[in-house]
């Protein structure tokens, strides 16, 4: 399949280690955020979301942290697996408007 994001920043982690992917968002009025995972040749897949009244939310193996003061979002993946290899995008949303995507980070899991 074709490659998504040939020139994206890349994070390489060893299988089993934890991964941290960062995102700076642009709009201080954004009140809802989503992390998406995109595999080659496929559409973005929802991972986890967080609202602006929260600073942390946990899912299965994933945690999202939100720092509104510096407009920063991070995605932590615990015990990274080969299947986690993909491009990860953060998306910000103001109610009533569209989702605005960040530039993306390629996660490469090393055996």
């Amino acid at each position, binding site marked *: 399949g074709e490659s998504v994001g040939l020139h994206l920043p890349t994070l390489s982690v060893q299988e089993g280690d934890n991964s941290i992917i960062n995102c700076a968002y642009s709009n201080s009025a954004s009140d809802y955020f989503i992390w998406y995972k995109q595999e080659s040749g496929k*559409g973005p897949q929802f991972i986890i979301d967080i609202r602006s009244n929260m600073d942390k939310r946990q899912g299965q193996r994933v945690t999202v942290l939100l720092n509104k003061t510096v407009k920063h979002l991070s995605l932590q993946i615990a015990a990274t697996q080969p299947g986690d290899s993909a491009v990860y995008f953060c998306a910000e949303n103001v109610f009533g*408007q569209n989702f605005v*995507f960040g530039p993306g980070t390629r996660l490469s899991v090393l055996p």
Partner: protein
Amino acid sequence: EAEVAQSPRYKITEKSQAVAFWCDPISGHATLYWYRQILGQGPELLVQFQDESVVDDSQLPKDRFSAERLKGVDSTLKIQPAELGDSAMYLCASSSSVGGTEAFFGQGTRLTVV
């Protein structure tokens, strides 16, 4: 599991020809988005619908692109005439409300203009 359906998955067209993409959102989702994703970049909005009405088409190149959602369900995005720079992935997404809830994406249509 409900999903957003898009067709075709792949399309190759010659420059100056017309091309159309189709999207069927998740049943009951009032909000529908069309995004364009150039290789190496994040998706960028082309048009947003709430039911059959256009909410935001400020980034849609209206001289050549058009989108419709006549009955507030499925949607069609058209390009006429296609240009080489239109080569990209065209993604459709739907959401149950206009913001504040998950937007689910289809698998996209990969357009190549030759």
